[in-house]
């Protein structure tokens, strides 16, 4: 009874091949960038500089790994990640200055961070708008941290923390390892686990996901927990490097993270994208910044170019995605 059609698959529509093309584009962009970079500045193409770029991408990169889950799940993004990072650092420092050993302080900190993520996810699962919820949550976290510290930096004294902040493993800083590790974990979770699959399903169409038995409330809570953990990790690394937790200096985190996710080509509506792409997005931004820094361009010019590049890249992804046959 099947209708006969003389249909032959054309490569341009095959999702597998368009995925390959996407990677070809991304990697191509990096190669072009590297070539131009190396041409104008010899220092750009050195291994040291490569490491420096990875290190520069590491902080917002690791948070972007968590944030990608939120975007993929169709809950847009969180505007509380910077504050979560700050709060995690402050909380750990406060606990340690109260005399708790590092291990316990870290466990307690993450317990609180997980709770905070779960609370936000829970409110959003109840039907609240994610942007408004996280905007509010971020403001409250900033308020609480200010209240707890009176605005003072909180010093941390611990050899372990010192190592976490400044250690190197085979010459590569701990932060870079943490970034690579979170990329691997995020990739694995998205591609190889039920949670990952259900996150994508929910982002692609929440109503269908629910009708197919996906527990969207649970997934919502989990993705916000994951993002909070990633932010908490960053906060602890930030605090560890200079042995003190600070209340200021996390304003740009949210935007850097969102930029990494979007430049990586993850769709803002959810359901399409991957943590690997976000990681590349973060590295890409870091590379461009690094290059302009090495040429000692003024901050204004650097900012203009960063903005213009973001526009060009997101528009490029958008057009490529449409051509694929939306």
């Amino acid at each position, binding site marked *: *009874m*099947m*209708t006969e*059609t003389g249909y032959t*698959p*054309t490569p*341009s*529509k*095959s*999702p*597998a091949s368009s995925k390959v093309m996407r990677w070809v584009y991304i990697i191509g962009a990096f190669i072009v960038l590297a070539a131009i970079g190396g041409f104008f500045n010899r220092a750009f193409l050195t291994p040291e500089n490569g490491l420096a770029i990875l290190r520069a991408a590491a902080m917002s990169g690791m948070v972007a790994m968590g944030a990608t889950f939120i975007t993929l799940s169709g809950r847009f993004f969180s505007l509380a990640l910077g504050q979560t990072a700050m709060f995690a650092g402050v909380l750990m420092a406060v606990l340690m200055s109260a005399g708790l050993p590092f291990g316990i302080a870290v466990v307690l900190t993450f317990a609180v961070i997980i709770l905070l993520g779960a609370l936000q996810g829970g409110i959003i699962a109840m039907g609240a708008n994610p942007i408004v919820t996280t905007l509010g949550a971020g403001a409250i976290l900033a308020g609480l941290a200010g209240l707890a510290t009176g605005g003072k930096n909180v010093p941390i004294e611990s050899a372990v923390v010192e190592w976490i902040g400044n250690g190197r493993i085979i010459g590569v800083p701990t932060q870079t390892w943490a970034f690579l590790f979170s990329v691997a974990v995020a990739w694995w979770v998205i*591609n*190889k*686990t*039920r*949670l*990952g*699959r*259900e996150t*994508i*399903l929910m982002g*692609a*169409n929440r*109503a*269908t*996901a*629910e*009708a*197919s*038995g*996906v*527990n969207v409330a649970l997934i919502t809570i989990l993705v916000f927990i994951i993002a909070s953990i990633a932010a908490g990790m960053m906060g602890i690394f930030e605090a560890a490097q200079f042995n003190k937790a600070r209340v200021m200096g996390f304003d740009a985190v949210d935007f850097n993270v969102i930029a990494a996710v979007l430049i990586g080509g993850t769709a803002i509506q959810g*359901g*399409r994208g991957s943590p690997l792409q976000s990681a590349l997005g973060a590295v890409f931004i870091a590379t461009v910044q690094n290059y302009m820094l090495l040429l000692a361009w003024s901050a204004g010019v650097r900012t203009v170019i960063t903005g213009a590049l973001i526009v060009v890249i997101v528009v490029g992804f958008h057009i490529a995605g449409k*051509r694929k*046959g*939306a």
Partner: protein
Amino acid sequence: MSNVALEMKGISKAFGAVQALDNVDFELRRGEVMALLGENGAGKSTLVKVLAGLHVPETGSIKIDGKPFNLGTTQLSHAAGIAVAEQELSVIGTLSAAENIFLGGVPFSGPWTRKRLAEKAKPYLEAVGLGHLDSSVPVERLAVAERQLIEIARLLATNARILILDEPTAALNDSDIERVKALVTKLAREGHSIIYVTHRLGEVFEIADRITTLRGGRSNPPENVSDMTLAKVIERMIGRPLEEMFPPRASGFGEAALDLRNVTTKALPLMQNLKVRAGEIVGLAGQVGSGTESLLRAIAGADIVETGSISVDGRRLPKAHKLSTAMKYGIGYCSSDRKLDGVFADLAVSTNMVAPSMRQVTPRFIVNRRRIRDLTGRISGQMAIDPKRAEYRVGALSGGNQQKVALGKWLGISPRVLLVAEPTRGVDVGARAEIYGHLRRLADEGMAIVFSSSDIDEVHGLADTIITMYRGRQVRTVKPADVGNHDLLRDITHPEEEVA
């Protein structure tokens, strides 16, 4: 002066690899109703959109009243006297009826005050039989049929001579359909030329003067309705005669698989009882709003069951169960709105197929690729879905194939009970027969199936047991052999006179 209002010659339009329109010729005379027919994906809507100025064809010429015309923007198409009500409902819920009428480029100068709008909108609303309406109420508060009529009122307000209606009755009740049909006839009599797109082939014989069929993007020459039969129309559409629309019925049933006792929900305050045996297909016949879909929603857990009990294979579902609980008891549910909650249009066919079976394909939470492959292979086989397309976006498939994916995805959890609302809404006649065949085969394999439909032929042809519903009440339960279409139609429209 000839009486040809619109002439299109050699129109072609491709979307990437899909040749949606392939050298299409089309002609429309003054004052006639031209039915535009074809399978899903045949190119009907694309042709309509070319006329609306939404698509620019790659080749071809268009003449209006004998003069060549360049379309390509909605403004040009307006200027040419063409007005289109597209397939998707296009009224804006938050705005009022009057505002909706004047928004789409219809002239209205001066301030848009409530009073002025109401005054100017009145004649158009009257023309479509909505003269009584308070035109300042947001249309989201109106019934679907009224919204459809407002769309037509908007066409009239443009003073266009050529009106195009793309599946205006797809989502309407029989009685509302009558309103639309009467209106179309009246407008044609008043001198409008009308292109009427539909999958309800019966309508064609009532209101159309001529028929143009499209098949795979190519056009057949127009034919007079009076020269045609239903079988001939179908043959033009699918390129071969349709032997059997409906599969043979079951010979016997098994144990009771689904049992509802005194169930009520907010939408269904009257108690509902229902028994469905393994292997049985129960058809709930009723108009939109009659409660047929609400009953399915109640069983599926999409609506909250306030009182009463539901059991599957003798196991009683918990009170006020959720969708996911129903699933665990072996209930699969396809709503009538595929795009909304039936498929993931942007994801691959294979991903869609395994969505309800996450537990099976991710044992210990880890994705098992082999299981996914096995399951998609099995479903593709059972539902006759081309396995080569397993990695395609579902949104790129035809309506019929999308519906097969929406149904087939349930096979992974081997449901005891399958609930299907409007199994063939917007699905063309060939794919329709195919879907009926699949449903029957699933029943034969031991599933209990309940479907709801506002299409009486469908219920009569497919169901083993028919339940008619009217305003949330089960009017009666009958065997198809014992009733005619006529009785069913009366039951679902005005049952009072008959039922004691």
